[in-house]
């Protein structure tokens, strides 16, 4: 049974302004205490309580920097929480930064293989999916060429085709709904709907409110690292849109 439970979860980034420490920092700055490198604390997530059960399709919206992507990465197990508890049951498949992680010197076919392996495929399973992935990407003979000759749009097509060839249990999606040209976007949306129909639990982050309305039944509004409100997707979208409009009018 797939489920997600976050109990009073917080995540704080501690950023040292100097970045990585050198030997000079250790020897000189530690001796002269007053020159210690300051640490900036960024409270990316604060006191998050969240339960998502099997069959739920949850959207996350909010302003830039609200903590949406950070929350997804905590759910995926990439970031450990600073406080609180994370419980996720089920096999997680995540679609984050899908345009990253291409090996430029390798061909499209080879990238399909090793990105498939990253997603947990075996050589046999990825071989059986290759024709469908190639067909969906519509890249044809370009797949025989190194990826460094691809345009940005072609990379996105290939990344999306590979990333959505999985059969997810828990699907975490971060801003991959608007990909490629207009024709490909229709195809991409249809593919996302198919994936979501197969998944047992979905969490989607997107600024595309129309997609959220079509794909999700529940919505969480994140604001400055906290869950500001949550409820039915239409209600949340309306409230969020009204709030953004109101802020814009106030600023003007």
């Amino acid at each position: 049974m797939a489920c997600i439970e976050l109990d009073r979860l917080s995540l704080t980034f501690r950023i040292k302004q100097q970045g990585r420490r050198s030997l000079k920092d250790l020897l000189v700055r530690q001796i002269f205490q007053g020159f210690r490198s300051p640490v900036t604390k960024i409270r990316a997530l604060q006191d998050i309580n969240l339960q998502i059960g099997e069959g739920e399709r949850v959207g996350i919206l909010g302003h830039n920097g609200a903590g949406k992507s950070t929350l997804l990465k905590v759910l995926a197990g990439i970031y450990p929480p600073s406080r609180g508890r994370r419980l996720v049951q089920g096999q997680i498949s995540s679609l984050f930064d899908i345009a990253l992680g291409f090996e430029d010197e390798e061909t499209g076919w080879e990238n399909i293989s090793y990105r498939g392996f990253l997603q947990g495929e075996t050589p046999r399973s990825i071989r059986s999916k290759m024709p469908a992935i190639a067909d969906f990407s519509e890249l044809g003979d370009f797949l025989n060429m190194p990826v460094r000759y691809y345009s940005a749009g072609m990379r996105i097509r290939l990344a999306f085709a590979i990333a959505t060839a999985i059969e997810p249990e828990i699907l975490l999606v971060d801003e991959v709904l608007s990909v490629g040209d207009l024709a490909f976007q229709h195809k991409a949306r249809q593919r996302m709907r198919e994936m979501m129909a197969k998944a047992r639990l979905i969490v989607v982050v997107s600024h595309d409110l129309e997609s959220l309305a079509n794909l999700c039944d529940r919505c969480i509004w994140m604001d400055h690292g906290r869950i500001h409100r949550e409820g039915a997707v239409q209600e949340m979208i309306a409230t969020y849109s009204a709030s953004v409009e109101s802020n814009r009018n106030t600023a003007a």
Partner: protein
Amino acid sequence: MGGYLISVWRCRYFWLSLVKMDLRNRYRRSVLGVGWSLLHPLIMTAIMCTVFQRILHAPMPDYLIKVLAGLACWNFILSTTVQGCQCLYQGEVYIRQYPAPAAIYPLRTALGALIHFLLALCVVIGVTWYFKGFDNWLVLPSLIPAILLLFMLGWSLAVLTGFSNVYFKDTQHLCDLGFQILFYATPIIYEPSDLGGGLLSRLVQCNPLVPVLKLFRDPILDGRLPDPSTLGVASLAVSLLAALAALPLWRLQKTFIFRM
């Protein structure tokens, strides 16, 4: 630890594909390609023998084979340690997308270096057969546990330098400098006895790489199995290093991403 190794094994298709890709990329568009892995130790050995054989009055072809075998091991340890410094940064884009065990990135480095080492070892065996012949081929399978120990040594070093470089950026420079010193503190181009019986000779004997080198040199050069004590000391040294490498994997596996 067993559970951790199982999780590493589960990702095997991914890290094996990275190793394959690294090998392809290393010699892409190169004329000699993987031939460089064979040529490099041969040329270095020829230079070392030309320069040092006269100074040390060492008998040939034993000295040639000894230096060749020593350099093959040394190059493996050097490349896993120095390239290991960047292994986590090399895998950063995957680390930020997929919560795999961090040990797979140093493993990628160590496996790539191991393949080059095995090619160099074939050259060593080939050169030995050509110049000396083998009285006792049956001891050569004893190289298998030696290779496994050397691999574990390299993987552990890559883990340590990889994590260290995330928290302390001068690690790479310290490794470069440290290995320059360590090269002359390791009996690759000389025997410890060449230093006289004094403190320096005893210090060199304490170098944990000495038993590891003997595990390769004894079967190839002398056609005999290594002493059980040599295997014991080498195993102990590698085990201690592996235990040390397990520490960052246990304590820092989840949090090192915040320092990248």
